[in-house]
């Protein structure tokens, strides 16, 4: 797919807003519909029976949950519909997972398998899909099967591919990017995990991009603000990321980003959006509700509100919206 065929989030929004202006002239109903469609859609999907008798997530139910989420997000009837809008045969698709939390709190394997299945049905060759994060051993410890070369879905860490030599910069950030992002994929699907984060407040779509750069340890002061927003402004990230599928099967509301079972819960869900800022805003509310249920202070009262979300939405960044009035929340 060449660049002109790619519809970025911003281009999509511009088209929708322009369309809304045209339709607005023909009546209030169309205007209301256009205003609604100009909103960032975020799907929060849950399946209480996602797990069987054991702790493991049921693959078939996960596939169904993913299909429901994606169909709702793209407002289409068929499971393959959303994927055909996202990718074209010949695309090289990177699934940036989060494997830092070990087996219990990394991107769910069944979810990643389901995404790979749908991508292949949309015409993406298995070997053109790469599941990746920072470190191969971490991926392995999280349960991923490492695969490099051959005709299978690829899976390895940046430790194998390396980082680009040149620094890329935006605002407060100067980093070297993973060669997996720069050379192995032209489409990025973000597959983070719904987590509390000691520094940033929460960790979901935007924070997951710390796993793309060589020096994330430099960007943790001040609640990771404005660093998270600045990292996401790096052109290779901004132009390639088309979708975020946040794994909320197991989530944490305290003590993150590491896995602490006493502060985790089986949420059995997904949070899906093409707007990573809106996704993080909605996911933050999910975590706040759980904290309230457990009698914990809000993140604001705990002096670690995720300020980076507002920064990502501000006039300098415009990575998406954190305004609830501009978010269309779809719960299924």
């Amino acid at each position, binding site marked *: 797919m060449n660049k002109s065929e790619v519809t970025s989030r911003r281009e999509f929004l511009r088209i929708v807003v322009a369309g809304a202006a045209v339709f607005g002239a023909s009546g209030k109903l169309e205007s209301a519909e256009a205003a609604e469609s100009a909103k960032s859609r975020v799907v929060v999907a849950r399946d209480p029976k996602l797990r069987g008798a054991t702790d493991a997530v049921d693959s078939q139910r996960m596939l169904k949950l993913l299909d429901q989420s994606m169909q709702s997000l793209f407002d289409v009837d068929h499971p393959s519909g959303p994927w055909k809008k996202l990718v074209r045969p010949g695309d090289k698709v990177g699934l940036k997972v989060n494997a830092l939390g070990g087996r219990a709190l990394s991107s769910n394997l069944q979810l990643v398998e389901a995404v790979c299945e749908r991508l292949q049905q949309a015409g993406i060759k298995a070997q053109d899909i790469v599941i990746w994060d920072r470190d191969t051993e971490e991926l392995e410890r999280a349960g991923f099967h490492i695969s490099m070369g051959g005709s299978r879905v690829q899976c390895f860490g940046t430790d194998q591919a390396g980082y680009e030599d040149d620094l890329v910069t935006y605002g407060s950030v100067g980093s070297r990017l993973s060669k997996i992002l720069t050379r192995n994929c032209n489409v990025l699907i973000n597959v983070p995990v719904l987590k509390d984060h000691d520094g940033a407040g929460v960790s979901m779509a935007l924070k997951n991009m710390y796993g793309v750069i060589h020096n994330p340890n430099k960007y943790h002061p001040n609640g990771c603000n404005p660093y998270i927003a600045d990292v996401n402004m790096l052109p290779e990230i901004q132009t390639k990321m088309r979708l975020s599928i946040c794994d909320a099967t197991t989530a944490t509301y305290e003590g993150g980003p590491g896995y602490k*079972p006493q502060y985790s819960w089986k949420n059995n869900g997904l949070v899906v959006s093409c707007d990573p800022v809106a996704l993080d805003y909605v996911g933050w509310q999910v975590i706040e509700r759980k904290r309230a249920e457990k009698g914990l202070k809000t993140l604001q009262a705990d002096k670690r509100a995720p300020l980076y979300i507002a920064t990502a939405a501000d006039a300098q960044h415009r990575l998406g919206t954190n305004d609830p009035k501009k978010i269309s929340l779809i719960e299924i």
Partner: protein
Amino acid sequence: MRAGFPKCRVLLAEMLLLLALGCNRQPANIAAAFPASDEVAGWSRTSGIRTYEAADLWKYIDGEAEKYLSAGVQRASTADYKFQNNLEAVVDIYAMSKADGATKLFDSEPAADAKSVDLGDAARLFRQSLLFRKGSQLVRIVAYQDSPGAPEALLALGRGVAQRLPK
């Protein structure tokens, strides 16, 4: 009178050595605190011991490293364990520069529904994890599965680790 001088010098040297050790304490060899397979009944160690120096701790625990650094962590070691082929766990030992650091970290975590147990200087036992401190060490043991026997098994492993930690 001169015959006593060498003894004084030895004593002085010993005092200086002790003072130096007190001022610049090196972290104990925490790798030795990880029980080998079957040293604790039913538990096998299923991985090598991975160690992260303070500057590299972010590679293991990401942003949480900041909290540990501010509490004076010197290094962390971790290893995987399995109990009777049905419970998997990971043991993390954080060596802090001072006992205060271990206390600060221990106290920073909500007790939630923890059970207080007699282990080390202070300990909390949860359904799927155990947290305790002993001297300048903080130990966290986390099980991946939630099974009825998990707390008891974790406590046994914790006791095995505590025994091997320096005082």
